[in-house]
């Protein structure tokens, strides 16, 4: 509340943003120098997972709808960004000359195109949510994810089932770095947080709590549900674009139902409806997936058991709908003083 009603102080924000960018840049150098490639990769995946989880949580946690086909949005973003990047790079280089600047511009334009197309898919999938509740909607999202995968499997200009590797024999350019992943993590977390703690966010929660009452309060439930889907799909699209530029190519199997399940695990572990919980869940999944790499065939058995046990024992997840924030921590430490 007190934060929301504060008048913005633009100069402070500017300084703060510059500081964050500088810190990111320094951290980027530190990560590149300090960790072997294997660890760097885990860190990047953790960041991408945080984006996926925080975005998905907007639908599944905050709005109380249920998407279990989120890998579909990620796939749209990944393919769109990869394709755009490949086609755009020569033009941008011609304009700016080869180098970090051109790469950065190409990369972020490609990511934005990916986000845009994924958002379009989000509108498409969000529309049935006007008429469907809960589990029905879940099935539609699942069906959507499958249809997307089948389409990419058959799209010749995107390499069909072999996958898309761009036009050069070296494969897709690996633009994705610590700096850009966490730049987007910060942007997306801030955007989602600001949406959640606003009149829009309250309305989304109202839809989750009681849709009939929400309608009786003149809340435009239809528009808001589509908005949640659109925004969430866009974030998955960014994550897809970041993912695509981590390796030489992307395949339709990278976006199977398993990937959607990974995302569900992320938000369930952390607590549906909590941004910080989702972020924690994203890191958790990245780390456990790596730890279980040798146990590949047991991984999903363990995941499945984890899901069931969480549902039976603590269905609200680690944090429930609570958030970890400075204000909450301060409250916690102040509490003992109260009579």
């Amino acid at each position: 509340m007190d934060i929301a009603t504060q008048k913005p102080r633009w100069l402070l924000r500017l300084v703060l943003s510059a500081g964050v960018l500088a810190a990111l840049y320094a951290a980027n150098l530190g990560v590149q120098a300090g960790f072997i490639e294997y660890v760097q990769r885990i860190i990047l995946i953790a960041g991408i997972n945080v984006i996926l989880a925080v975005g998905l949580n907007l639908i599944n946690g905050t709005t109380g709808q249920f998407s279990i086909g989120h890998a579909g949005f990620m796939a749209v973003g990944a393919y769109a960004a990869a394709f755009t990047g490949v086609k755009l790079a020569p033009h941008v280089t011609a304009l700016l000359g080869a180098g970090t600047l051109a790469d950065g511009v190409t990369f972020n334009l490609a990511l934005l195109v990916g986000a845009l197309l994924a958002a379009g898919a989000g509108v498409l999938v969000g529309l049935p949510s006007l008429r469907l509740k809960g589990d029905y909607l879940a099935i539609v999202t699942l069906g959507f994810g499958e249809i997307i995968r089948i389409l990419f499997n058959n799209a010749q200009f995107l390499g069909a089932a072999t996958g898309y590797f761009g036009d050069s024999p070296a494969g897709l350019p690996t633009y994705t770095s610590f700096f850009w992943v966490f730049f987007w993590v910060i942007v997306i977390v801030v955007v989602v947080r600001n949406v959640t703690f606003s009149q829009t966010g309250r309305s989304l929660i109202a839809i989750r709590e009681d849709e009939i009452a929400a309608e009786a309060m003149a809340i435009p439930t239809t528009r808001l549900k589509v908005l949640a889907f659109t925004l969430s799909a866009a974030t998955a699209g960014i994550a897809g674009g970041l993912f695509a530029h981590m390796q030489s190519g992307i395949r339709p199997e990278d976006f199977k139902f398993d990937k959607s399940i990974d995302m569900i695990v992320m938000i369930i572990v952390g607590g549906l409806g909590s941004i910080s919980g989702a972020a924690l869940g994203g890191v958790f999944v990245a780390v456990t997936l790596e730890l279980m790499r040798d146990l590949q065939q047991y991984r999903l058995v363990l995941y499945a058991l984890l899901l069931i046990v969480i549902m039976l024992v603590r269905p609200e997840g680690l944090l429930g709908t609570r958030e970890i924030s400075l204000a909450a921590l301060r409250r916690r430490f102040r509490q003992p003083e109260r009579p």
Partner: protein
Amino acid sequence: MSEFFQQIINGLSLGSIYALIALGYTMVYGILKLINFAHGEVFMMGAYSGYYLASWLGVERYQAAGRGFPLGLALVVLVLAMAASALLGVLIEALAYRPVRSAPRLTPLITAIGVSLFLQNAAMLLFTPNPRAYPPILRELRFAAGGVIVTNIKLAIFVVALALMVGLHLFVQRTWTGRAMRALSMNIDAARLMGIDVNATIRATFAIGSALAAAGGILFGLDQITINPLMGVLTGLKAFVAAVLGGIGNIPGAVVGGLLIGLAEQLTAGYLSPDYRDAITFLILVVILVLKPEGLLGVVRQEKV
């Protein structure tokens, strides 16, 4: 024209398998309002139990001797596999679903996804991920009529599926447990007050639905020649779409939906492209949910305000 009839025959036989599986989805949804995601895996487990039972009863020996597997033993395989799957269904209900029955609706749904994943991956560990050739518990015989080929397997699929569906209909309409199921699907609390044993009835629902899925699994194995641990994912999904198409919670609807999905799939594969045989199901799903979410035979239920 004969090509068309061939597709129709294949579509109806595939569709009756979908119908058998769809019945389990629709019965459980009718009572618990739960999409039993693990149902496709029960179907897969049914196929595997049929596989092992047939091998235990010596199907290889008959095959090596060049003789057909006796029909009586084939029926034993069917019945025992159905019983084993019924047990699995009851176990799933008791261990995973009953504890979360009164929780908010997303909790059982996520639990169901968990059970489904667990069974898939447990099956990959137990049976290896490789596809297996299904034992010929029915030796294939071909009949040709006017350019259309009908195998005895396709006929058996019809007959078994039809017999089970008629049996289910009679059970639900005529027996005490069947009446209890219908009562539960209308109002669980009222049914409990009328002295119906809710837990026992739900258990029976899972047992019957799972047994039907197992029958579907064996027929599927015979029809498609191979089985694998992930066979339940797509087939289960299609059967669920069939249940939604017919009107979820509605038993005749599941049968109609199953047959329609089977036909749509075969005709798409035959006349459009085999690549899109899976996509058509999801397209039907999206269209039906947007245009008539209560399904073809379903009724609209209004939430009480």
